């Protein structure tokens, strides 16, 4: 049973990466890492699967295309066909600019919303754990611990260069 988190703070992204990799390889449970900028290789070190936002984005973009094209065709051919200079009602090239814009709009705004929901970010949300320096220059690894192995895990991260180690309750 997990009770607490061991918060290990590192000086450099390299130390964090090697500690994270070692923690994962030795079977310890990585709760999360906290870094001031996206550290290259973190995905692999933490063993996090590739984000599926791309799929979400593609589906939302397709929805945008379908909505825009469907609506424009319905309006121009069914709801109220307007004869403008004898041009065909279902002139597809003329419908492309709006279709494209709505594709981008749906994909961009929708993917952002999905990202916010998935990452539990919203206006007024509180940061999970209050961590000193995680948005400035500290590289923090949070490992799950329980009563038995707290000491051992603290030693493990200290051996790998953690400048500061402390324990907090699981949020």
């Amino acid at each position, binding site marked *: 049973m997990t009770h607490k988190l061991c918060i290990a703070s590192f*000086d450099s992204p390299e130390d964090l990466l090697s500690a994270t990799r070692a923690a994962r390889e030795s079977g310890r449970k990585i709760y*999360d*890492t*906290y*870094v*001031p*900028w*996206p*550290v290259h290789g*973190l*995905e692999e070190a933490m063993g*996090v699967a*590739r*984000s599926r*936002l*791309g799929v979400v*984005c593609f589906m939302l*973009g397709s929805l945008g295309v379908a909505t825009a094209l469907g609506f424009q065709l319905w*309006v*121009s051919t069914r*709801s*109220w066909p307007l004869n*403008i200079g004898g*041009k065909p009602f279902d*002139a597809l090239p*003329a*419908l492309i*600019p*709006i279709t*494209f*814009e*709505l594709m*981008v*709009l749906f*994909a*961009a*705004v929708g*993917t*952002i919303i999905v*990202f*916010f929901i*998935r*990452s*539990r*970010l*919203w*206006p*007024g949300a*509180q*940061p*999970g754990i209050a*961590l000193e*320096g*995680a*948005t*400035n*220059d*500290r590289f*923090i690894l949070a490992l799950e611990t329980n009563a038995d192995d707290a000491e051992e895990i603290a030693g493990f991260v200290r051996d790998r260069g953690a*400048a500061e180690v402390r324990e907090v309750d699981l949020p």
Partner: protein
Amino acid sequence: MNPSATQALRPPLVDTPRTASQITDDICRPVEAMPTASWYVGFFASVTALCIGAVLVTHEIATGIGTWGLNSTVGWAWDITNFVFWVGIGHAGTLISAILFLFRQKWRTAVNRSAEAMTIFAVMCAGIFPLIHMGRPWLAFWMFPYPNTRGPLWINFRSPLVWDVFAISTYLTVSACFWYIGLLPDLATVRDRARNRVRKFIYGIMSFGWDGSGRTWIRYEMLYLLLAGLATPLVVSVHTVVSFDFATALVPGWHSTIFPPYFVAGAIFSGFAMVLTLMIIARRVMRFENYVTLRHLDAMCKITLVTSLIVALAYAHEAFFAWYSGNNYESFLAINRMRGPFAPEYLVMVTCNVLIPQLLWSKRVRTSPLIIFFISIAINIGMWLERFVIIVISLHRDFLPSSWADYSPTYVEVGTLLGSFGLFFTCFFLFCRVLPMIAIAEVKSVAATPGSGEVASATIIDATPGEGEKP
């Protein structure tokens, strides 16, 4: 990666090496300190211009667009010129943030935040002009397809003006979202540094509870990549659609297939000129010379030069095809541009957009901020005139000589343009005060040198005595 190895390959992106926390301190300083005197002067000058614009727009809406110099021949002039001008300005921001991101141009990190802010403010300014041109702006919602009791009678989806509504509003929305996504980590940085409770609360709400979680960062990077991928064709599409407003008409000088690339290149050209104008002022006033280095100015000048050449090619094309087409109206237009009543505007345009930017071939010019500043102002003027030339010269001599007319702006139109600059700079000055002007997390990821916080804060007090500490 080993930082010294990187530096051997490429010159560093900041002039003097900075640690991560020094970068945070430097960039947050203008947000946390009291504004300087020059900020107040600039801000109140902008607000004054904005107020003049607001009064004149109110007058125009209350009276009607008869307060402008338009007539039944020249139905588009000053207002639509301003619209195209501001939309064009808005192109550099997304180009820097999205296209240069996809091309992995790391120097973009120092300028992308302010360029994106500039984009949003410029598109806001642009949006005002078609709106007030309607004469009855309270009916602007008629531009959108909404269920109504008139049939429902829908808008004409085959009209470029309707495409424009969708393009501009999508562009504004997506640019604003993209900008805010970029801001999130930096807002959290400002929140975590805040000493007073009000600040902490406001930035706390604005930063959405960002805590730097690695899992979030991984998703965030994917999101940023996707948005860049979406914004790249978007930025090209927007000015393409704006050019369709003209290109699909039969008016000589408008009815042309080169308009989309010509307009997009012109937009990037004018946008970069505006970014240069703003960044040269901002790096000086905010003391960001260390981040927006001469190398950045140099790179932006090169893009400006390339787009200037594309624009020059387009001007040459227009003249060539006027002759080569053998079309009387086209060749009359070309001659009328160069020798007609608006010849001075045309000549100033060519001077500002083609001749003056050629100075940028010289490395010495590209690295002296003062000269670049004047060149960028010239380009801004030239690009405004380009839109004026396209719109007014084509319209004022149409197919029927009996309907030929002249055009000169009234004080209301000139004042409205002044007001739009007021709005733009008011927003920009506020932005400089309340948000980090440089993307802190991104700059750190490309430029921070390893070092601990204590050493860093000791150094920064040494480096800049008397201004390192904040309450």
